[in-house]
C-alpha cells in the first residue's frame, strides 16, 4: 500500500550499428544481400542528387517550393527498404528518396512541386498515398489503412513518415492511441531531424526522446541512429516482423539531421549555427555507408553519373509536358460533377474559347517568394 514504483519499469532502447566513423558493431549487423545493399546505396545517392537538382530548378523558377531531404537518406531508405510492394507507404512531404524507391517516377515528383495535380496521382497498382502537407494529418490515415488491412485479413503492413515537429500535433497523438488500442500493423517512422523549420527539438517537447512517446500508447518505441542505414534497417525489419505477426505497432525515432534548408523558401542561417551543421555533416549517412560498402567491395563505378543522367531524363520529360489544361481542374472534385460544377466548367471553357479579355494570364516564371526573403531577393527591403 505504500508509494510504489510500477513494475516492470518502462524502458526505451537506442540502436546504433555503423557509427559516424564507419565502425561496425558486427554483432548487430543485419544480414542484407549484396544486391540490396547496392540498391540501397543507389537510392540514397539518388535522393541526394535529386535534392540538389530540385533546389536548382526551384531557384530557376521551374518548380515551386521543395523540401530537401539531404542528411535524411538513411532514415528513409533504411526503413522503406523493409517494405514489400504490397505494403503501404504513407509519406509526409519530405520523403523524395523513399517515394522514388516506392515507384514514384521522378517526373511525377517534379510535376507535383511544379503545382500540377498530375503529380499527386499514384499508379493504380501502387500502395502509396500522395504527399500530405498538413503536418501529422496523414497519421490517422495510416492507422485507418492498417485497420482495413486487418479487417480484410490481407497480408500487408503500413509504414508512415513524419518529423519531430509532427509529434506535437493532436493528430499524432490520436493516431498513435488508436493504433495502440486497435493493435494494427503500422510502423510510425519519425525522422527526428532536430528542427521543425526554425524550432529546435527542445522547444518542441520536453521529452527526453521521441521514442518514449510510445510509452503513452502501450506499444514499443525505439530510438535509432537515423544516419546509420543499417540500424534503421534493422529496427524497421524488426518492427515490420512484429506487425506482420499481428503484434501491433511500433514507433521508430530516427535521430538524424536536415542538412539543407527546410524548404527552398527557408533561410536556416537565421536560426542555427554553421558549426551545428558542420558537426552533422561529419555524421553524413552516405559517407559512412559508402565506406561500409567499400570494404565489402560493393561500390559501383560511375554511379553518380548514371543517376544524374536518370534525373536529367526525368527533368526533360517533365519539361516536355504541355501546359496544364485549366479545364481539368474540375475533374475529380466529385465522383460525378454536380450541375453547378458543370456550369462553372462551361464558364471556363467558354472563357478559354473566347480568348481575349477573359483569358487567364500566363503564370509568372519567377515565383513570389513564400518566406525567407533572402537578402538577394528582389523583394527584400
Amino acid at each position, binding site marked *: 500500500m505504500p508509494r510504489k514504483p510500477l513494475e516492470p519499469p518502462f524502458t526505451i532502447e537506442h540502436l546504433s550499428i555503423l557509427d559516424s566513423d564507419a565502425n561496425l558493431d558486427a554483432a548487430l549487423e543485419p544480414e542484407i544481400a549484396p544486391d540490396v545493399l547496392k540498391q540501397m546505396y543507389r537510392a540514397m545517392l539518388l535522393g541526394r542528387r535529386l535534392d540538389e537538382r530540385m533546389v536548382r530548378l526551384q531557384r530557376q523558377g521551374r518548380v515551386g517550393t521543395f523540401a530537401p531531404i539531404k542528411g535524411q537518406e538513411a532514415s528513409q531508405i533504411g526503413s522503406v527498404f523493409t517494405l514489400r510492394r504490397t505494403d503501404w507507404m504513407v509519406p509526409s512531404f519530405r520523403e523524395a528518396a523513399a517515394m522514388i524507391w516506392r515507384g514514384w517516377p521522378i517526373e511525377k515528383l517534379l510535376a507535383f512541386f511544379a503545382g500540377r*495535380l*498530375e503529380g*499527386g*496521382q*499514384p*499508379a*493504380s497498382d501502387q500502395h502509396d*498515398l*500522395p504527399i*500530405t502537407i*498538413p503536418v501529422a*494529418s496523414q*497519421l*490517422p*490515415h*495510416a*492507422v*485507418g*489503412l*492498417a*485497420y*482495413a*488491412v486487418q*479487417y*480484410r485479413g490481407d497480408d500487408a503492413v503500413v509504414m508512415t513518415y513524419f518529423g519531430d515537429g509532427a509529434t506535437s500535433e*493532436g*493528430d499524432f497523438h*490520436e*493516431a498513435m*492511441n*488508436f493504433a495502440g*488500442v486497435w493493435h494494427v500493423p503500422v510502423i510510425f517512422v519519425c525522422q527526428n531531424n532536430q528542427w521543425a523549420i526554425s524550432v529546435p527539438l527542445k522547444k518542441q517537447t520536453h521529452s527526453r526522446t521521441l521514442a518514449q512517446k510510445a510509452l503513452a500508447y502501450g506499444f514499443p518505441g525505439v530510438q535509432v541512429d537515423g544516419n546509420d542505414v543499417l540500424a534503421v534497417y534493422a529496427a524497421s525489419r524488426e518492427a515490420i516482423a512484429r506487425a506482420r505477426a499481428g503484434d501491433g505497432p511500433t514507433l521508430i525515432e530516427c535521430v538524424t539531421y536536415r542538412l539543407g534548408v527546410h524548404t527552398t523558401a527557408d533561410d536556416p542561417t537565421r536560426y542555427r549555427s554553421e558549426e551545428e551543421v558542420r558537426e552533422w555533416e561529419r555524421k553524413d549517412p552516405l559517407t559512412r555507408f559508402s565506406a561500409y560498402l567499400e570494404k565489402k567491395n560493393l561500390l559501383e563505378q560511375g554511379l553518380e553519373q548514371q543517376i544524374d543522367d536518370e534525373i536529367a531524363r526525368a527533368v526533360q520529360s517533365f519539361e516536355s509536358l504541355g501546359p496544364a489544361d485549366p479545364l481539368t481542374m474540375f*475533374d*475529380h*472534385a*466529385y*465522383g460525378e460533377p*454536380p*450541375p*453547378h*460544377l458543370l456550369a462553372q466548367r462551361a464558364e471556363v471553357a467558354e472563357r478559354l474559347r473566347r480568348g481575349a479579355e477573359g483569358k487567364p494570364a500566363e503564370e509568372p516564371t519567377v515565383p513570389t517568394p513564400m518566406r525567407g526573403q533572402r537578402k538577394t531577393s528582389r523583394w527584400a527591403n
Partner: protein
Amino acid sequence: MGKLNMVKALNLALLQEMERDEDVLVIGEDVGVDGGVFRVTEDLHRKFGSKRVIDSPLAEAAIVGTAVGMALYGLKPVCEIQFSGFAFQGFHQLENHAARYRQRSQGRFHCQMVVRMPYGGGVRALEHHSESEEQFYAHIPGIKMVIPSGPRNARALLVSAIRDPDPVVFFEAKALYHAAREDVPDEIEALPIGRAHVDRQGGDLTLVAYGAMLRVAREAAQILHDEDGVESEVIDLLTISPLDRETLAASVNKTGRAVIVHEALRSFGPGAEIAASIMEGAFLSLEAPIRRVAAYDVPFVGFAREKANVPDVGRVVAAARETLAF
C-alpha cells in the same frame, strides 16, 4: 417494417446496408455496446461484432481521420460524431483530406464515407448540443451535405449516402429522432442526393426549409392557407450541398416570393446561398426581398432561451406575411 421513428429508420438503413455490403462499417464514440447515445446504432454491435461496429476512443479527428484511411483502402466507414458541436475537433480531417483525396490523387483514391451527426435544438441540451453547423460543411467542395426531414427520407438518404462515392456529411435533427413515425417500406429504398423535394405545392410563396424546420414550414403553410388563403410551396431541401438550384429557381419563378427557414445562424449562413442562388435563378420573377428566418447571431443561448432563438411557426408566418405584403 411498418411505422418507424427516425432513430429506427436510420438504424434500419445501417443494418440493411451492412448486411448487403461487408465493406460498410460503423465507427464512433459509444456506437457499439451502447448502441449510440441516441440508439441509432442499436443492436448492430451484437449483429456484426466489434470489428465492424467500432467503439472508438474519444477523439473526433481520429474517428474521421482513420475512416479516411479505411475509405482509401476501399472500406465504406460510417462515422458517428456524438453531437455536431464536437465535429470541429475533427474538422481538419474532413476539410484537409476527406474532401480532397479524390482530386489530390487524381481519381486514384476517393473517400466513400459518411459522417453522421445529430444537430439542432429542441432537446433541452447544454452548450454544443443544440447548434446547427451545416453551413461549415456546405462550403467544402468535394463533400456532400445532407439533412433529412423525417424517418422515411432519412432512411432512404442514408442508404444513398453510404453508397455515394463521395464523402457525405449527414445531419440528423435531434428534435426529429422521436418526433414522428412514418411508414418505411421493407425493401431498401434510396433517394437521390442533390435533389430537393417539393413537399407542398403552391403558387403564392415559396417556403424553403430542411431538417427539423420542415415541419415548421409546413405548419406555417397551413396557417397561411387557413387564415390568409395563401398557397405556399414548401421545398424540403434534403441536400444542402450540392444545392438543388433548379428546383428553387423553378418554384420562385412561379411564386415570386420566398422565405427561407433554418436553425443555423443567420449571418453567412446557408440561407444566404439559398437566397443568392434564387436571386440568380429567378431575378425577374422576384416581387419581394427573400427573407431569412434563422437563429440569431449569438454563440449560444441556453435551452431556457432556445424557443426565442430557433425559428418557430409564428416567426415564419410573420415573415411570410411581410413578404406577401411587400
